[in-house]
């Protein structure tokens, strides 16, 4: 790749984020007309990537990038082959139309600028996802699409349903992302490569690896949650709480296909094995049927479309799993066709909703005269979705049936599933495209009229693309379909199906599908009632299961927190010190590393003995003091004596610090005592004192023995020598202790002072909480003894 192109490509990946940054200001300036300048961002990206079409069409792979974290072998690199390019063009092309559509759809919305920013951010994430070569980038962008989808679904955050749907989508797809990460890590471990382009060479090795099944299941976990496969399909219909541009863009054309993208990308590496060819078609086929049946049941236009999206994703997964040459070609064609017609139909549903105030199919009718352009777009899209010639959807469906041809039981079963699913989707497509527009006029909340240019432009262009791509398939295939299928198959594949029907089994199946579809369409109300009954009979669904899991988790969390955090200071202190004592004593006992009894120093000087005696007197004072203040002071005496010992044995820095710490401890402990209004005397009963004393003695003993043991082991002077040697020479300081603190180990110190600072803040806020929850000090002293009785330090309850 030439350097200029590389910079341009990198710029194309950054452009959506720049657009997102500019969107709020532009919208404040121009209102909803900001959609026009903002649409230039994705349009420019589309044009840039369209420039790769001839190159990729010749079977070349465009790669580029730069080292990101070279020390960890992490690169920011992209891989643009037929698969990536098709996705890149769909994302940026549909993205352009969606930005325009959002301009009209959210006109005068107070947060339209924010919406533009979110949708452009999503676009950036999605472009990055499909173009990523490095595993890390793939994962980062994958999660970024989950996060931006969360923001977009919850855009209308004042409604509880939107918040729930947003959270649900985030948990399901984000959780799947973690599985993906785990899968990528295992792949990395097995192959040693962190780039998709290099991974292709390791296909056989991966498939033979004992970890193959683990990799496959982890990857499927990521892909199935993202692409809403049964039983994770429930988040997608709930995500329809989002504004319609989001449904059209994220939840039909792009994001939900990320899982399918992943499967297609990994097909040459993981595909072709028995588990792959069993799990994928089984779950895909099941999802197809479940989605189609649930779609029939809905009356809300958006929900009908959402469930057919689930069904279509199931079909794509099924085809990817079958893996034959026709299946790969069918998946490629259907992927593109679906993005075009489903995006258009969603936008149509949005226009109907926007202009009439309702999107319930039972409350709509006869809009065709008032909204002719929308009607035209709807019909064009539905013809493609229904798979009628010469639309692109027809090509896809013919190829699907060609792929399923065969006389094994397996082929027959999948053919039946595909026919049933397609027929139901056919019925839904025409229900959405015809019912609101034909028949007698039904009164709607708003008087219907054609939407503005910004609204109908998107669906019309997409639907027309579906027609054009079918008509000129001879030109489209070499540029788009064949490279896409080749990348999926991992070998050159040619797609050559044309829009002219010719007699074959596939055509017969198509005819059956259409006949069935028409039958369901005619009897839609009865079919809906039947589907409704079926779902009501089952009763429980994964959506409710999700709620049960979440509430179970919350309950478990509550119970755990209550168990671990009883709120009793006494318990915390006891646990802490017992653990300290065990941590010190158990290893000594376990490894039988008890210290030798220390020898009495023969050359102990009188003043040294005096200081030690002073320390002992301090300790004795602590134990025998009649009130708490005295024992704090006695503790101070002990501390000062130890500091004196440090001074005598040549550690002036340590002694110095110890002096100051002891002084401040006495001051602060005294303050704490007065502040907490503790009883001056320790009033613990003997039954409590004895275990407390035992713990204290165990801790003290542990520290003493441990220190003795440590000082008795052989001292390795390598660090001492190093610091003595270099302190002056390198760090220009004679005080080795200080040089270590501020220079050699400066980063440690930086962390430590950050801890000091954070501790200070924490203590400060704890004191503040006390202050605000207790009554003003003056009145508390005598006014409300019941509220804040003088408490024993051991019993002090933390709140």
């Amino acid at each position: 790749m030439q350097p200029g192109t590389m910079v341009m490509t990198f710029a194309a990946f950054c452009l959506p984020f720049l657009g997102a940054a500019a969107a709020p200001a532009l919208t404040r300036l121009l209102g909803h007309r900001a959609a026009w300048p903002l649409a230039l961002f994705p349009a420019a990206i589309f044009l840039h990537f369209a420039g790769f079409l001839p190159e990729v069409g010749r079977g070349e792979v465009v790669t580029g990038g730069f080292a990101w974290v070279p020390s960890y072998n992490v690169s920011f690199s992209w891989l643009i082959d037929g698969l990536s390019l098709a996705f890149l063009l769909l994302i940026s092309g549909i993205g352009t139309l969606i930005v325009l559509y959002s301009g009209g759809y959210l006109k005068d919305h107070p947060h339209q600028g924010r919406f533009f920013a979110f949708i452009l951010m999503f676009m950036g994430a999605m472009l990055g996802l499909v173009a990523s070569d490095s595993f890390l980038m793939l994962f980062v962008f994958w999660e970024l699409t989950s996060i931006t989808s969360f923001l977009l679904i919850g855009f209308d955050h004042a409604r509880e349903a939107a918040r729930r749907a947003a959270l649900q989508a985030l948990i399901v797809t984000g959780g799947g992302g973690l599985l993906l990460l785990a899968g990528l890590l295992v792949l990395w471990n097995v192959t040693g490569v962190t780039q998709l382009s290099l991974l292709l060479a390791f296909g056989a090795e991966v498939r033979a690896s004992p970890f193959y099944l683990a990799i496959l299941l982890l990857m499927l976990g990521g892909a199935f949650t993202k692409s809403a496969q049964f039983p994770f399909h429930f988040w997608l219909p709930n995500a329809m709480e989002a504004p319609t541009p989001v449904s059209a863009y994220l939840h039909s054309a792009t994001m939900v296909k990320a899982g399918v993208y992943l499967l297609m990308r990994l097909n040459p590496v993981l595909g072709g094995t028995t588990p792959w060819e069993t799990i994928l078609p089984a779950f895909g086929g099941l999802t197809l049927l479940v989605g189609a049946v649930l779609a029939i049941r809905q009356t809300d236009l958006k929900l009908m479309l959402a469930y057919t999206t689930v069904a279509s994703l199931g079909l794509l997964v099924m085809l990817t799993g079958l893996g034959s040459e026709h299946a790969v070609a069918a998946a490629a064609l259907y992927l593109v066709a679906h993005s075009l017609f489903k995006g258009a139909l969603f936008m149509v549903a949005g226009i109907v909703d926007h202009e009439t105030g309702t999107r319930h199919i039972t409350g709509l009718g006869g809009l065709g005269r008032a909204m002719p352009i929308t009607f035209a777009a709807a019909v064009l899209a539905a013809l493609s979705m229904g798979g009628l010639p010469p639309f692109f959807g027809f090509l896809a469906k013919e190829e699907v049936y060609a792929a399923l041809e065969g006389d094994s039981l397996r082929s027959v079963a999948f053919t039946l599933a595909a026919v049933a699913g397609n027929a139901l989707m056919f019925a839904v497509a025409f229900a959405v495209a015809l019912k609101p527009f034909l028949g007698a006029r039904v009164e709607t909340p708003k008087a219907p009229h054609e939407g503005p240019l910004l609204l109908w432009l998107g669906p019309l262009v997409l639907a027309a693309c579906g027609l054009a791509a079918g008509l000129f398939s001879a030109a489209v295939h070499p540029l788009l379909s064949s490279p896409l299928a080749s990348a999926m198959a991992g070998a050159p594949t040619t797609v050559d199906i044309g829009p002219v029907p010719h007699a074959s089994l596939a055509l017969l199946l198509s005819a059956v599908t259409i006949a069935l579809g028409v039958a369901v369409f005619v009897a839609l109300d009865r079919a809906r009632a039947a589907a409704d009954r079926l779902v009501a009979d089952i009763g429980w669904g994964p959506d409710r299961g999700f709620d049960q899991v979440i509430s179970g988790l919350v309950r478990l969390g509550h119970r755990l927190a209550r168990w671990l955090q009883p709120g009793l200071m006494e318990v915390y202190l006891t646990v802490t010190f017992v653990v300290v004592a065990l941590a010190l004593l158990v290893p000594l006992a376990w490894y039988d590393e008890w210290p030798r009894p220390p020898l009495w120093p023969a050359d102990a000087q009188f003043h040294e003995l005096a200081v030690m005696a002073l320390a002992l007197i301090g300790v004795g004072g602590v134990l025998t003091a009649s009130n708490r203040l005295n024992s704090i002071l006695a503790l101070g005496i002990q501390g000062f004596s130890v500091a004196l010992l440090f001074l005598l044995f040549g550690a002036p820095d340590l002694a110095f610090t110890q002096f100051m710490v002891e002084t401040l401890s006495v001051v602060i402990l005294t303050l704490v005592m007065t502040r907490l209004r503790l009883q001056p005397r320790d009033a613990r009963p003997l039954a409590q004192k004895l275990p407390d004393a035992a713990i204290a003695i165990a801790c003290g003993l542990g520290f003493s023995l441990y220190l003795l043991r440590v000082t008795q082991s052989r001292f390795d002077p390598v660090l001492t020598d190093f610091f003595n040697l270099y302190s002056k020479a390198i760090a220009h300081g004679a005080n080795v202790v200080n040089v270590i603190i501020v220079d050699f180990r400066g980063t440690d110190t930086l962390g430590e002072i950050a801890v000091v600072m954070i501790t200070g803040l924490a203590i400060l806020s704890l004191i503040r909480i006390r202050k605000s929850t207790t009554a003003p000090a003056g009145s508390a002293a005598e006014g409300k003894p019941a509220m804040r009785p003088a408490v024993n330090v051991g019993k002090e309850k933390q709140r």
Partner: protein
Amino acid sequence: MNTVIFRTLAPFLTALMLLFSLFVLLRGHNEPGGGFIGGLIAASALAIYGIARGIRPVRHALWFHPMTIAATGLFLACLAGLVSMVAAVPFMTGLWIYPSLFGVEIPLSTVMLFDFGVYLVVVGAITSIALALEREDF
């Protein structure tokens, strides 16, 4: 504790101790001392002032909230580490300059700035705890 002698002497004692804390801070690189110790001395100096005169005068004399002082310290310490980025050497590398002032060569370094940051963090954090603990109901 609040004798007249103590209350009269406390400001002088505090001033002396603060001065001493700075001395300890600056000599720390070559002789016993440094930011931690200096900070602790300064914190005790302020504590003495607080015990003698009450909280309000201490807060007044400090001018800034002690946490602000601590945060400034942390900022300076980070800054001392980041200067090395400009010089294209690893984070936290000590850098020295020797400007000459009135004919006397004064060694200045990022290490010193860092130690000063440590000093401020210790003073600020401990003083803010001590001040918050003293009753403010007067």
